[in-house]
């Protein structure tokens, strides 16, 4: 009987193809919009997540200068409160730390032959590569011995290599940073843009002491990059660093920190929350069109029931029960919902592809959004079809037969 009802319902739809399609259109657009909108939201989320993760896993960054409750750093970076000794103390005294990479950086002009290029020179230790997810593509990184001897060696990013050296292999070449000669001993693997659109390959890495003493002429640090052993200990390590540095800086209780400890997991969580809200918002706007589509189904089903009153009367006179008629019209509504849902999924996939292709946005189609949109469209067919179907099934056979 169920399949009979499906066939009868399909027949009813076939009799009025254009109308069935127009009714479906609401659902098609609704489902398509939900999938495309959620894919945009998920795309933003994925992009933010990968770029944050690209900074390094389990990363904690210590910066000089205080943070106000609103998150604005006061005089950060220009402050001179972090020292090499602080960095060493963190590595030595805090449990759960797997690597510490102190760093300083400043922009300088590089010269090679008749080419020049201005970029950030970063002074740090070899651990920096691990902590910030850099890898050496060719050559080697400098060693701790180079740090002890303030060696004039450099590891350069892909962008620098391309712009300064062109076709020449940079390895073993000598370039000048702020007029001092440096030998290129390694080229980094390309990392691409960061979440802020920064070129992460436009960088030159030199030994920390070389940068501090030969280039900047300072003894303090701008950053201490700390890698925790695993995500579980990050919060603990962050706390321990704060306690340790307050003690080392001899800050009385009540005096605010003169440094800032940032935890990337926390940054990530905030970002996820934000992108989640965006996704939800986009999805909700799209869902409204799905509901509007459902109302369209109800409207057409009501018209269809009135129009087919006589048919219902005949079917009832020949022995159709309440359930037979209910099922016939309910299935018609659900078929509209399901078919519209399927076409809408196709439209949504095509839409999110088109958005990423033409607008260049990152879109991620999540299977969950497809399933939810589809189930939703079936439910809408069911919900908005129920009232008209019940109305049809409750018709009195005599009155229905008399209907002109």
């Amino acid at each position: 009987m169920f399949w009979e009802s499906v066939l009868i319902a399909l027949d009813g739809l076939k009799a009025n193809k254009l109308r069935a399609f127009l009714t479906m259109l609401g659902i098609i657009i609704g489902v398509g919009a939900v999938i495309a909108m959620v894919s945009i939201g998920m795309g933003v989320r994925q992009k933010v997540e990968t770029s944050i993760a690209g900074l390094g896993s389990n990363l904690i960054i210590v910066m000089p200068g205080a943070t106000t409750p609103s998150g604005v750093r006061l005089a950060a970076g220009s402050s001179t409160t972090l020292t090499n000794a602080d960095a060493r103390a963190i590595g030595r005294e805090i449990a759960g730390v797997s690597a510490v990479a102190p760093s300083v950086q400043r922009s300088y002009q590089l010269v090679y032959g008749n080419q020049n290029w201005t970029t950030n020179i970063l002074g740090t230790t070899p651990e920096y590569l691990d902590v910030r997810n850099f890898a050496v593509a060719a050559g080697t990184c400098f060693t701790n011995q180079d740090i002890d001897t303030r060696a004039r060696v450099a590891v350069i990013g892909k962008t620098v290599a391309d712009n300064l050296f062109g076709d020449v292999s940079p390895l073993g070449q000598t370039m000048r940073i702020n007029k001092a000669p440096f030998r290129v001993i390694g080229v980094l693997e390309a990392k691409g843009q960061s979440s802020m659109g920064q070129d992460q390959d436009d960088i030159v890495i030199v030994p920390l002491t070389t940068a501090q003493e030969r280039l900047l002429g300072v003894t303090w640090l701008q950053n201490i990059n700390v890698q925790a052993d695993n995500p579980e200990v990050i919060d603990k390590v962050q706390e321990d660093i704060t306690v340790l540095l307050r003690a080392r800086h001899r800050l009385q209780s009540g005096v605010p920190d003169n440094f800032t400890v940032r935890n990337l997991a926390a940054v990530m969580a905030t970002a996820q929350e934000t992108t989640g809200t965006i996704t939800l918002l986009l999805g909700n706007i799209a869902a409204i069109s799905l509901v509007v589509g459902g109302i369209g189904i109800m409207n057409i089903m009501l018209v269809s029931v009135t129009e087919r009153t006589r048919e219902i009367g005949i079917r009832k006179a020949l022995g159709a029960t309440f359930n037979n008629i209910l099922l016939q019209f309910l299935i018609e509504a659900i078929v509209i919902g399901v078919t519209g849902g399927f076409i809408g999924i196709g439209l949504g996939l095509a839409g999110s592809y088109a958005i990423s292709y033409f607008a260049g946005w990152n879109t991620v189609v999540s299977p969950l959004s497809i399933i939810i949109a589809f189930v939703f469209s079936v439910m809408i067919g069911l919900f908005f079809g129920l009232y008209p179907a019940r109305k049809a099934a409750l018709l009195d056979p005599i009155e229905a037969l008399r209907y002109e």
Partner: protein
Amino acid sequence: MTIVLRDITKVYQMGDNIVNALAGVSLDVAAGEFTAIMGPSGSGKSTLMNILGCLDRPTSGSYSLDGEGVAKLSDDALAVIRNRKIGFVFQSFNLLPRMSALQNVALPMVYAGADRHSRLEKAAHALALVGLSDRQHHKPNELSGGQRQRVAIARSLVNDPAIIMADEPTGNLDTKSGNEIMEIFRDLNNQGRTVVLITHEPDIAACAKRVVHMRDGKITRDERN
């Protein structure tokens, strides 16, 4: 006794107006009888027929069909009885316009739960009985009035009911087609089926073995030919 009606009334309330469409009808119809119901317009023939055909329920009184009291059954129970026990033929044919003759005839078997194969087989057989084997795939609007009514009769036969009821089956037909239709009813009756039909025309009523006359919702005369 196949049909036993006792003191059937049917009252319609139209605002302040009360219409006694049936004012106490008692009627027995034995299995195999061929009964015609006659009477002037508005005398309650169709009302009575709808009750006999389980399309409607009386306001009061009892109706037993094949020994089963049906006056108080639920809508769905009545639907099952209409489907299994009664073949109904309407004055205006009441065929579904989008379906072929064969599909129209097979429709009652859909609700009887028969599988597709046996449905079409029986429908073709029923169409053959009314002489329309060569019109199986015609839509109702591709058939003449007489042919449409024969399709409707085939449909009333397809579930093999004991009783055939017809409300002015020849009312929309010319005399020749009407006579052909009556021929079919006579054959059906000769095969042992109970036939009850409504008519205005004495010629048609003359085909029946028994004629029941009605006026103002009451039976006034009950005669056997």
